[in-house]
Each structure stands twice: as C-alpha cells, then as structure tokens.
C-alpha cells in the first residue's frame, strides 16, 4: 500500500479523528504564530481540562448541556432534518422547569428546606418532564410546519429561537424576577428542586443531570438501533421517497423526530439551572444549542459518540479558560479556532464519502 493510500484509508476509517487532529494542528499553529509555544499551550489546556478533580468536574459541567443539545441535533439529523432551534428549545425547557419549581416551591413551603431523597427525586422528575414537554412542543411546531406545511425547518426554528428568548426574558423580568439582586434572573428554586453536586469534584457542580445526559444518549441509541420507531426515523432520513413507498408516513416521522429533538434540547439547560445556579438567568446558555450542532456533526449523528464529542467540546471550553490566566499572547478564543477547524474538517468528511461512493 502506498503512502497516499494509507493516508486515505486512515481518513476514511477514522474521519472524526482526522477532524480532531487537523483541528488541533491548525489551532495550535495559530497559537505558535501568536508567539506561544504550542506544546506549552496544549499542556495548559490539558491540565486545565482534566488536571484536578475540580477541573474535570467543571469539564463535565460544560459537557452536560452539550450532550443533550448534541443528541437533539443528532436525532433530527438522522431523520433528515436540521435542528438549528435547539437554542430556543433549551431556554423554553429551562424556563418551564424553573417556573414549575418556583410555583410548587411557593405552594409548598416545606419543600424549601427539604433535602431528603423522595421529594428530590420527585422534583427532578417533574422538572425534567416539564422541560422535555415544553421543549418537545417547540420542536413539534417546527416539525409540523415542515411536514404538513412545507416550511423549511431551518428558517422556522431560527425564528422560533428569537420568540423563545423574548418569551423567557419577559417571564423572568415580569413574573419571576429576583428581588435581591440586580441581575436579570429569577428567584432561587426551592431546595427540593436543586440538584445536589456529587462529592469528589472539589466543589464543581456535577449533578444527576450529567448522569441523565449519559442515560439519554443510551436510550436514544437503543431507540434508533433496536426499535421500529428508530428504523422508521432512519428510513425517513436516508431516503424519504423510498420510505414513503414502503408505507412509512414520513411527515409523521418528521414531527416525531422534531418533537424528540426538542424534548432533548429542553433538558439541556437543567444542569446549569437546577444544578449550578439554582435559578434561571437570562443568557445562561453560552450557545449550547449551536455548539450542539458541532457536537452532533463530529459524532456523525451517532448517539453514543455524542457523549465523547460533547466531552471533547466541554474539555476545550474549560481548557481554554485557563489560557487567559497562564499565557501572555493567547486567550481562550483559541478554543473557538480549534472548534472551528474541527467542525470544518468534520463536515468535509461528508464530501469525501459522497465522492468515494
């Protein structure tokens, strides 16, 4: 086998690895151009991402929303749709959970101090259901418009993002506004709804919502690979004309896929809201929904790979934060460069595959 062929087979066998390696290569080259030693930069980022239990914990905290939003995009993607509305779905879902927690907390004051297991498990489930339901509803609107009215899902979901931001901002400022701070945020939720941080991470708020993310990925993987629903969704995505001829109602599958995608995105904010801050803050999501697109793309739409891909992006985010503290010429914007390069090369692989087949 010649060298060129070897390289080619490597790219085709491990396209994601190629994307990551080239992404880092270009990103670190940029750092070198800026006058920093790329190895120094890399070691800072590595240590900052997983160096201590606290650092690892923070990486997992950043990973959590990306697992959900990555899954959301992946589910839609497998059904042949592009969910760019995860950002809107996740703020709506987060708001729904917060509203529910605040309403219940006001109604049952005993929840405020309760931190025993039963009310907490119930609180978590209620919040999760509310978030998934409202997020799912938002996704369903996009799915319905696409399946039954023929409006392109990219356009409608982008517009819904603005609506979602406006609605949640109004709710925060007019209905649930905190009285004791100047920030645009709600009152804190009752203790029964606040997820407790796992010990062992030195104070980093890694909570049950991280575990929920992993479980969701497993469930989505099983649904896609082992159930009839998953088969129908994939068939719709692979070739909707063929799917229609084999008797699948592709419009219905699209609506299901978007509702599922919305529900998953709806859960993305809960780690931050119920785990970290304990309240809903306007602008709490640092583009989790959009980063989810990159996460899903790198994972090739495979649910289990989304976990690893989300972890990589979480680690990049956390690792790059410390560049501000440790280097003179490079800031955390380097993470954006690396992310950008990874995404570029990850999407380039679809082009490769089409040409080769």
């Amino acid at each position, binding site marked *: 086998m010649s060298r060129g062929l070897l390289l080619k087979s490597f790219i085709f066998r491990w396209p994601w690895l190629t994307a990551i390696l080239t992404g880092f290569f270009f990103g670190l080259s940029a750092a070198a151009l800026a006058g920093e*030693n790329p*190895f*120094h930069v890399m*070691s800072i980022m590595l240590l900052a991402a997983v160096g201590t239990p*606290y650092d690892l914990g*923070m990486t997992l905290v950043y990973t959590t929303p990306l697992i959900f939003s990555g899954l959301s995009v992946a589910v839609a993607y497998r059904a042949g749709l592009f969910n760019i509305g995860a950002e809107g779905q996740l703020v709506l879902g987060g708001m729904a959970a917060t509203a529910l927690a605040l309403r219940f907390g006001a109604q049952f004051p005993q929840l405020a101090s309760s931190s025993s297991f039963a009310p907490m498990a119930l609180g978590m489930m209620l919040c999760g259901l509310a978030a998934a339901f409202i997020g799912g509803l938002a996704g369903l609107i996009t799915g319905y418009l696409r399946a039954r009215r023929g409006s392109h899902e990219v356009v409608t979901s982008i517009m819904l993002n603005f609506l979602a931001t406006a609605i949640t*901002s109004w709710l925060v*400022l007019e209905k649930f506004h905190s009285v004791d*701070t*100047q*920030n*645009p*945020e709600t009152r804190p939720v009752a203790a029964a709804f606040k997820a407790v941080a796992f010990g062992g991470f030195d*104070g980093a708020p890694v909570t049950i919502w991280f575990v929920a993310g992993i479980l969701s990925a497993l469930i989505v993987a099983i649904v896609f690979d082992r159930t009839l629903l998953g088969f129908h969704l994939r068939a719709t995505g692979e070739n909707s004309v063929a799917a229609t001829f084999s008797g699948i109602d592709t419009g219905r599958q699209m609506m299901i896929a978007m509702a599922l995608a919305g529900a998953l995105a709806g859960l993305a904010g809960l780690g*931050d809201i119920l785990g*970290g*801050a304990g309240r809903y*803050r*306007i*602008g*709490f999501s*640092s583009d989790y929904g959009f980063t989810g697109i990159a996460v899903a793309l790198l994972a090739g739409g495979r649910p289990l790979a989304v976990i690893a891909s989300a972890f990589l992006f979480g680690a990049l985010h956390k690792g790059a*934060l*410390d560049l*501000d*503290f*440790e280097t003179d010429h490079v800031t955390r914007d380097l993470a954006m460069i690396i992310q950008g390069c990874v995404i570029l090369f990850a999407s380039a692989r679809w082009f490769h595959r089409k040409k080769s087949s």
Partner: protein
Amino acid sequence: MRHLIRAAFFVWAGASAAMAAGPKTRVGVVFDKGGRDDRSFNAAAWRGLEEAKKTLGIDAKYVEAMDDNAYEPAIRTFARKRFDLTIAIGFSQAESMTRVAADFPEQRFALVDAVSSQSNVRSLLFADHEGAFLAGAAAMMKSTTGKVGFIGGMDVPLIRRFELGFRAGARHIKKDALTVANFVGITVDSWNNPPKAKELALSQYNGGADVIYVAAGASNIGVFDAAGAKSKFAIGTDSNQNGMRPGLILTSILKRIDVAVFQTIADVQGAKFTGGKIEFGVANGGIDYAVDRHNEGVLTPEIRATLEELKRKISNGSIKVPDYYVETDRATFKK
C-alpha cells in the same frame, strides 16, 4: 519527535521556574461583559491595574467574562491559583464573588459596585447619583432647547440611580427642564450594543433633546456616533471619553475606579488590606468631571464655575442628591 518532547519539557520547566521566582503580589481581575477595552467602566479599572503594574511591580492577569456563567469559574480559578487579590468589576459578579469568597476565607477579594457580606471582600462603592447630578446640571446649562436625554445600558437599579440623579441635576438648573430616558436593554448584552444605543440617541436628538448623558459601557460609542451625525452634545461616563468626539462631548463624569483599584492593590501589597465597604463620592474625589483640551471650548468657564459650586454643596451636604437606592427618594421624585 524526541526533540519535540524535550522542547516541550524545557518550556514547561521554564514556565514553572518563572512562576516560582520572587514573591510578587499577584492580582487577578475579572471584567464584566463590556470587556477590558470598553473605554468606559471596565477601562477605568484596567487603568488602575496598569498603573499598579507599573509603579508597584505587581503581576497581573485578567479575564473578560463572556456570559453570566463565566464569572464564578473565573473568580474561583484566581482563588484556586492563590492570587493575592481577585477583583471583580461590576455588580453582576456580586453573588459569584460572595460564594467563592466564602470557600476561600484566607484569600482577599474586591468587588466594584456591589456589596458582599463576606468579611474578606472589600466592596468599592461609588455615589453614581452625585456624578449624574453634575451631568444633568451641565447638560441643562448647555441645552438651548430645554430638553436633555439620558441613555442607560442595562435597565437595573444601578443605572436607574444614574437616571434619577441626572433628572434631578437638570431640574436643579431649570425648574421645568424636560428629561427623557431610555435603556439599551435588559440583559448583560446591553453593555456592548453600540448600534442600539445609537438608534436610541438619534431618536432622542430628533425628539428635541440636544445633550445626552450616556452610561452604557461599551455601548457609549453608539451615542457618540449619533452626536457626530447630528452635531449635538453627549456626556461620557466613568472614563474620560472627551477625546472620542472632540468638541461634541461636553464632559465625562469620572468614576475613579482606577484609584479604588490601585488603592486596594497597594493595600494588599502593604499588608493593609481590610474588608468591608469603602465609598467614593464627590466629597473625596472619587466622582468628578473631566476637563481637557478636547472639551474646554464647549464646557464654558461659567458652566465650570457652577459645577464647582455644586460639587462644594454636594460635599458639604447642602444639596442632597436623590438616590434611587433609597426607597423614599425613589418614591417622592416625580418624573
């Protein structure tokens, strides 16, 4: 490959050695959303930091928070890395700082524009309403239409405090002064949205206002653009912004965060750091207005004389500027 590994090792070792050398005072600063270079609020703090770097020989690092979730990890990282002092700029960071300060009781912190209950935090507070009063007075004295405007960044009590002081100042000069006020937005993005600020300024100018006082961080530049387009006056905030539109920026209300930051760093270095509140106002020079070659033509000697008179009266208490933070002031002031 072996060379690369060896090179990496040397860089690593060099970096660690540099960190170990000398007990330089290490100071970390977390800027808020406007960013270090907003030429207004954060920039004032930055100047204090640069000054301390030059004259006190400290080691300084800073982080610009890009969103609301970034504050706590940034403050915590400075604390974990055992920085001698961590300074958070802006009220948005109050809660995060209080939480981190509680976890690191032996570390020292400083917070600008908000109060923290932790005893290892020094809260640096400014009488913004007094400065806004001066701005209102200056604006009204310069106005020919009898109508002046205020544009705030984020609609929060802190900025309402500017607004109230401004309206009171304008009315102090002219009983029937007309004042209008708008806010750029409701989120932290408001500190960095010049186009929106420009839009608001244009509509205020078109509505008859001929001097606009703006307190909106990095958004200020939008108002200055509008002033340039309409050839009308604006008043800057926090840092000296007179030079950003020479001749059109009537004056800038200075908030000496640079002094507060420098003082706090010097106290840490001299082992004189104390927690608790320190207040800066017109009386102790923490709030002032800027006169330089860019505005001495427009800020006439008569205006300056009156402003000095007002400063004296505020200092000795014969003028009490209504404070939005005081509930009775807020309730009794009629817009």
